[in-house]
């Protein structure tokens, strides 16, 4: 995992990459436009294919090559443990075949809608000689087409020079959030809507910092890493990830093509357990801090709740405003669509304004304690019947534990045991396996270790 409490912003960012990042960081975010597509698939570079990176002197090395700034085994980790490698193959499995049939597709492995996220789906004209769709989400799906930078990259250019030549800056929280969430939440063109879910697609639980670690990460933050890329903290990654996820969620609300259809709203915007529960056992009353009445479907606000938590340490006024607008958004979902759009715009604006602050902010030991207290309060609070809240609380706590470990506040053994407890609650996709009561108990047991 990324470590350290300080961040060193490299000033040598070359103009081209800087422009891309800035475009993502401010104007596009503030103007309410989704830019996932342009971000995640730069139109210039040719994608040369995984084979190009996998050489045993490059990223397919069993041992760290002498003098290498990286471990050299990145391809091996990806090729043996990272599910991204299976992203394409999964399209040929039984579940995908059944989904494709339900959706009226010929099959999944040739369907652009599936390939958009299950492979490095660049246009034919951008596929090099060794490129294979069947490599799934390979190196260049995240790091960008290598034709422009492979030469200098192999020759040992600096990280900044690589970026200037077109390497995607996955080390930077905002860029990473945009890239990952382009699929793990979606955008205008790539979106797992309720149609796909109903056909059998799994839900998409996500938290940027935890998923970076769980991937598993194919990097270690050592002095060589820090010297080349600077320090980024887990909590910065977490906070920026929540903000970008919320922005993308609001983009969906504000996209007339995705937000509603006929009598029905886009259900993936809502909390799954609002509807998916056995009405005989009536989970009612289902308490909620939103003030919504019974029988209403609740907007999935887990990212907003987490972002509010981060903002409470970084920009308390923004936290309050975010809270107020989310409450108004919840209410509007029951009586006023224009209100939904108005409030979603306001929420989006607050989240976008928070991104640069969160990227820079140095979370202290006090912050970590306060954030863990806040996350536990959410997890033990009225809305914890929602798996989305449980998931985000769990992953947030994991980011906090990792930060506490990096800061030397919590020892390795203790951190490992806390993460082992949290891991049980990371994916509560099947609500049958999730019960708030044991979750609350587990959180209370963790509380002392997190420094209150």
């Amino acid at each position: 995992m990324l470590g350290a409490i300080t961040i060193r912003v490299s000033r040598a960012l070359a103009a081209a990459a800087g422009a891309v990042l800035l475009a993502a960081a401010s104007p596009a975010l503030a103007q309410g436009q989704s830019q996932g597509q342009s971000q995640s698939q730069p139109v210039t570079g040719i994608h040369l294919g995984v084979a190009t990176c996998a050489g045993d002197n490059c990223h397919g090395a069993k041992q760290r090559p002498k003098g290498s700034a990286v471990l050299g085994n990145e391809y091996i980790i990806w090729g043996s443990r990272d599910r991204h490698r299976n992203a394409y193959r999964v399209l040929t499995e039984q579940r995908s075949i059944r989904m494709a049939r339900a959706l009226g597709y010929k099959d999944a492995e040739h369907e652009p809608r599936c390939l958009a996220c299950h492979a490095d789906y660049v246009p034919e004209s951008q596929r090099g000689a060794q490129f294979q769709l069947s490599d799934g989400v390979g190196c260049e799906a995240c790091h960008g087409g290598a034709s422009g930078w492979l030469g200098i990259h192999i020759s040992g250019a600096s990280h900044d020079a690589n970026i200037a030549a077109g390497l995607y800056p996955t080390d930077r929280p905002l860029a990473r959030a945009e890239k990952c969430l382009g699929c793990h939440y979606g955008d205008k063109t790539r979106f797992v809507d309720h149609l796909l879910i109903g056909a059998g697609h799994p839900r998409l639980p996500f938290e940027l910092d935890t998923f970076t670690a769980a991937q598993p990460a194919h990097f270690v933050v050592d002095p060589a890493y820090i010297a080349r890329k600077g320090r980024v903290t887990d909590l910065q990654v977490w906070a920026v990830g929540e903000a970008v996820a919320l922005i993308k969620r609001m983009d969906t609300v504000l996209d007339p093509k995705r937000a509603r259809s006929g009598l029905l709203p886009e259900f993936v915007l809502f909390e799954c357990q609002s509807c998916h529960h056995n009405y005989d056992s009536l989970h009612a009353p289902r308490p909620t801090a939103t003030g919504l009445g019974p029988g209403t479907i609740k907007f999935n606000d887990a990212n907003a709740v987490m972002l509010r938590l981060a903002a409470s340490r970084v920009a308390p006024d923004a936290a309050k405003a975010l809270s107020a607008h989310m409450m108004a958004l919840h209410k509007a979902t029951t009586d006023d669509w224009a209100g939904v759009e108005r409030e979603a715009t306001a929420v989006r604006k607050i989240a976008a304004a928070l991104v640069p602050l969160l990227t820079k902010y140095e979370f202290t030991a006090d912050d970590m304690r306060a954030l863990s207290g806040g996350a536990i309060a959410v997890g033990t609070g009225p809305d914890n019947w929602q798996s989305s809240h449980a998931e985000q609380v769990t992953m947030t706590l994991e980011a906090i534990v990792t930060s506490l470990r990096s800061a030397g506040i919590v020892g390795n053994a203790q951190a490992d045991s806390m993460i082992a407890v949290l891991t049980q609650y990371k994916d509560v996709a099947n609500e049958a396996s999730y019960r708030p009561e044991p979750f609350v108990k587990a959180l209370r047991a963790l509380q002392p270790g997190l420094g209150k």
Partner: protein
Amino acid sequence: MSADRWHWRAIVAATVAIVALAASGLAAAQTPPAPGGGDGIHLGVASCAGDNCHGAVKRGEFSSVEQNEYLIWSLKDKHSRAFKVLSTEPALRIARNLGLPGGKRAAETAQICLDCHADNVPESRRGPRFQLADGVGCEACHGGAVGWLGIHISGAPHRANLAAGLYPTEQPLARAERCLSCHVGEGNKFATHRIMGAGHPPIGFELDTYTAIQPAHYHVTAAYIARKGRPNDMQIWAVGQAVDLKKRMDLLIDPNNAPKGATPELALFDCQACHHAMSQLQWRARAATGLGPGQLRLYDANLVMLRVIAARVAPDAAEALATHMLALHQASAAPVPDYWAGVQREAAAVRKAAETLIPALEKHEFDQGDARALAQALIAVGVGGADLDYSAAQQQYMALQSVVAAMNLLSFADVAQINALNDALGGIGKTLADDQAYRPEIFVAALRQFEAKLPR
């Protein structure tokens, strides 16, 4: 008749006179008897429950009815507990969740609850012995007795009772209108999804089946037939489905139930479309809706049944129903902002098709050929996979019960055959006991077993 009975009648006559006086003093606004509660003064259950009237342990020698109607109602019929249930913990929880005022009396005093959990006529139409606490009592269904109790007691023919204001519950259309006014709802008498979400149980209904399991407080005897005609369960089922569909379309078109914010009135949709475990991948394509997976569908099990009926009785109407329902489903998922006009247009067309069918269904003499054809068509809906949603399976099951009941009553099958069919129905029922445990394959297997028992 015994002296006792005369004595009792004198008391009632006196009561009637007093009530009539009170009523005339109160208002000239007394509305003429009409279906839907616009009837006379409601005298209260006590007025009917005399042991020489409808509260008799033993049938009187010359009585055309069993006379134990009050006893059946009060001992076995849940309608008698409709009000009492409002003070139980689940009801109080619902009231709390809805924010109703009144503490422990919140549900018992709220109009939204009372309109269906009691005979909630205006104060001005409640006689001295009337008690809200009697729940859905005699006059909630049979109408306020002030206008007809006198002649009713004196042994007037059924027709005369009706002419004096007794509600014609034996007529399928009238019964459907009466029962469904609560069991589906109309206007403000409607268990919205807000009420469901607060804890109200879902409301399943099929007119003929629910008549039987109420339990019915009448027997179809020679005396019954002489007074009221011979009922046909298939007809009751058919008319019930048409009225049910009509009322659903009314609710769908009602501006009060239009989508608000991001939320449509969810009570109009198929419950199990949402209320299922996410691990249970249950979506099946249905040509009748044309909807994709993950798209919430309007509840249409009644329509599927009515199509089966219409295909037998009025094939043109069946086609119109199918066309407009497909269009309604499509409109329900059409791109914003065009959908609402489409929903209203198609719902109105479905409503009209259902309404047009009613006279034909009332007139049609459902015979042995119909019984066989309808049973086969119902089985085909499930076995053929046209509609295997839980809601549809429930309706198929209840429909088959009605068909078998008709076969029994009209002697279309012998006792052994009826028993075998009823056993097979029990097998179908078991597969539907728990909506969360429902598996279409098992339901279909039970349908096939039933099919094997049908008389050739």
